[in-house]
């Protein structure tokens, strides 16, 4: 897939369709399972090219995941595609028992994840999926930041012998990885820019927002390291620790509840390692969520170019460079 550096790219769930079609041409075991979600999953082209490889289960997510487990146990490579809010909440027990506990290689693709559905209401948000799946044995969790990471995540899911949860949004995304020729990996973190003042560890669709904040901060002379951390579990602690040791303040951003997600995971890892750093975790706070378009809601909770830059300045003001404190 080409790597656009300017202008909006595709929504990550469109990358899902293109990547799955490409994989399916050489891998006869690939199946796509949907819960009346082929339209919302934009899987029309896949269904057209491989009509016999789509298994429709109707609006029944528990059965969807159980059937996928049965298919996987018989050597198929099932990709379960369903809105993240339903897939990871309603079918959580099937994910725990039929996928994780039984060790079936089910590829769980949560679409329109986080607060992608915007003003449709809290029923359609998935802001507890990181927490739920991080605590479910055997399920790695990946939240791609752009089309390149989305493609890499789907290819990784097809390649690994084991389950995987991939969380995809529905907004068209700019590429955050630039035009570097190095292949994009999602099983480790990537430093997208480096600077010694501030570190921002971001995952999923908040990575692009973090890059915007870093650009704004650079105009003030604040140099920022921005890390894309697509794999929320297991955590790339080596990159986390290295960045934390090099900066004066660290912010973690995620389109997820402040409970149980990347922010808490990073905080716990840093505390355990004994790395002191001024730290903020930004996510959806523990309160009834405000309604509105995705980006407006995120900005309301501090995950936007301006509020993130403002928070960074405040964090660094309270923690001046070490040379001046001696």
């Amino acid at each position: 897939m080409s790597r656009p550096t300017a202008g909006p790219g595709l929504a990550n769930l469109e990358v899902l369709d293109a990547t799955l079609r490409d994989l399916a041409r050489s891998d006869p075991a690939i199946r796509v399972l949907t819960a009346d979600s082929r339209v919302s999953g934009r899987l029309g082209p896949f269904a057209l090219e491989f009509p016999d490889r789509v298994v429709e289960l109707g609006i029944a997510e528990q059965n969807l995941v159980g059937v996928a487990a049965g298919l996987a146990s018989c050597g198929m490579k099932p990709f379960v595609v369903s809105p993240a809010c339903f897939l990871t909440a309603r079918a959580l027990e099937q994910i725990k028992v039929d996928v994780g506990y039984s060790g079936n290689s089910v590829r769980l693709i949560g679409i329109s994840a986080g607060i992608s559905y915007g003003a449709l209401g809290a029923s359609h948000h998935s802001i507890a999926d990181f927490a739920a799946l991080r605590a479910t044995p055997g399920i790695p969790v990946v939240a791609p930041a752009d089309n390149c990471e989305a493609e890499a995540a789907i290819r990784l899911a097809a390649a690994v012998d084991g389950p995987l949860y991939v969380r995809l949004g529905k907004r068209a995304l700019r590429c955050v990885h630039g035009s570097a020729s190095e292949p994009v990996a999602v099983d480790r973190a990537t430093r997208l820019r480096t600077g010694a003042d501030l570190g921002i560890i971001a995952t999923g669709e908040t990575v692009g927002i973090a890059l915007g904040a870093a650009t704004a901060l650079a105009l003030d002379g604040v140099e920022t390291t921005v890390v894309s951390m697509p794999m929320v579990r297991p955590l790339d602690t080596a990159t986390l620790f290295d960045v934390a040791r090099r900066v004066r303040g660290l912010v973690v951003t995620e389109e997820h509840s402040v409970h149980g997600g990347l922010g808490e995971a990073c905080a716990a890892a840093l505390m355990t390692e004994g790395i002191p750093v001024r730290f903020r975790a930004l996510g959806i706070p523990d309160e009834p969520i405000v309604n509105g378009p995705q980006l407006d809601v995120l900005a309301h909770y501090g995950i936007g170019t301006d509020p993130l830059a403002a928070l960074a300045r405040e964090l660094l003001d309270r923690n001046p460079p070490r040379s001046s404190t001696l």
Partner: protein
Amino acid sequence: MTTGDDDVRADVGLAVRAARYRLDVLDLIRSAGGGHTAGSLSCVDVLTVLYERVLRISPETLRHPERDRYVQSKGHAVEALYVVLAGAGLLDRALLGTYLRFGTKLVGHATSSVPGIEQSTGALGHGLSIGVGMAIAGRQNGFGYRVFVLLGDGELAEGSVWEAAMSAAHHGLGNLVAIVDRNRHQIAGPTAEIMNSEPLAQKFAAFGWTVHEIDGHDLVQIERTLSSAPAVPGRPTVVLADTVKGSGISYMEHDIRWHHRVPDDEEYAIARRDVENRIAELRGRA
């Protein structure tokens, strides 16, 4: 597969083993001081017939892609499964001594870490969906295997069972056979009082399944029914096996307290006599 009047002697052997498995179940439960006693006894005849007469599985073909599949959705009745697997040579009998011990593979619900057990269950309402997936895979791979799923009748209160039932008929899975261990009791009382699932025959028929109602302790009926499914190609089959919770042990039958109870020495001695009498009766008939 021969059944019925033309092979009475073989049926006696099978019935004797099914009787002995009841004692094996009690031995297992007594050794660990816990287990699902009566619910294991209600399905032990079905399991005996499945593993000794119906399923195309052997110790050599446990991982063969074309083997028949058995999923025990009522995973709590795992003691019956363990002893029948051991009896069929599919599970190392020495492992039975580790049941419920620290670090054991043999936990109190079916788990796929035990060789011979296809899938982990225990949370109710999961097995039929897994069976649907296995049946779809079998058809798409061009394999002739069948998939058998054992459910409890109390379990049928789980909505996911009916999601699976709907999808099995929708996908025309003639290679899927569900067996309901209809012992009409669950942990807190009679199923009819806790959550009435009847009329099951009409419900499954309305969902598009072929329905058989049999005596779940009549080995010949069990074998004939399971061996001949599907009666209608392209339709999933459900066998409503009428069973008795605590079957074969006089004082346990129909007594709800035996869902979980462990027999003491005196009770065990009575159970042993019940089983010995049953075996003598079977041999006398032969």
